[in-house]
């Protein structure tokens, strides 16, 4: 009798743990896919070490290429072409920011952790959650 009791308790624990995993997984999936449906942003905000250093209206910005130097001496080269923005060169070892390519939607910012650089697109019409964070 005690064995069946223990089994039931154990099974309910396993179920609880599985449900927690499933909740985390599904809510993350939702967070990702609901975000992708947002309207593409038109304004780029460039942050270095948490401070806004440049705001660029991608609708009217001319094609240009400029460097942002971070407070620890690293640098990222940012390029604007055809109303799109991306990082073309970085001094950081992993180069994930360059691999990101063009910033496509309000969802994922381009981030260079070693150089503390963040580029965020924002929807001019407002309502983007990202705006609240900063």
């Amino acid at each position, binding site marked *: 009798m005690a064995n069946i009791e223990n089994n039931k308790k154990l099974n309910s624990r396993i179920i609880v743990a599985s449900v927690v995993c499933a909740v*985390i997984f599904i809510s993350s999936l939702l967070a990702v896919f609901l975000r992708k449906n947002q309207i593409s942003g038109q304004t780029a905000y460039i942050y270095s070490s948490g401070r806004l250093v440049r705001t660029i209206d991608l609708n009217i910005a001319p094609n240009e290429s400029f460097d942002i130097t971070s407070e620890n001496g690293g640098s990222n080269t940012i390029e604007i072409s055809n109303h799109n923005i991306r990082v073309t060169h970085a001094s950081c070892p992993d180069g*994930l920011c360059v691999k990101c390519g063009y910033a496509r939607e309000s969802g994922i910012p381009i981030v260079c952790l070693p150089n503390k650089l963040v580029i965020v697109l924002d929807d001019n019409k407002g309502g983007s959650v990202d705006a609240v964070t900063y």
Partner: protein
Amino acid sequence: MQSRTKQIAISAMFAALAIGIYGLESMIPNPIPIPGIKLGLANIITLIVLKKYGLKESALVLAVRILLSSLLFGQLMSLLYSAVGGALCLIAEYLVDKFLRGKALFITAIFGAILHNVGQLLVAVIITSLPGVLIYTPYLMISAVITGFVTGLAALFSLKLLKKL
């Protein structure tokens, strides 16, 4: 009733394995641009040692693996990320394993992976003072559940094989 010397030798072997796995994994090109997405294969070793030899041995193996891997394969920054991520991962795995009384190891592994990524996110937020980094959380959670499941299975099968030795 193994002697301490034998235990040290065994743990050292697992630590070396963990470092090797970590190094190998660091060489795999990663097509995903999100920082922190990785396979986390070294967690397999952490799980095996935790189940077979207990929390203390697993903590030792983990500490050795983190120290040496960061020296060999990473920068000073990665030491901090690995340390916090690994510590949270081990604590989570120990607690969940107790909670589940040793069953369903893949669930334990998933929680370990989730906590590992949580730890890395915390370090990222504190170091860069950019709470916006948290936007990666959903992607890291998805990756953690999947890779946790896979590493959990790997650890489960490894433990079954090791029992035969």
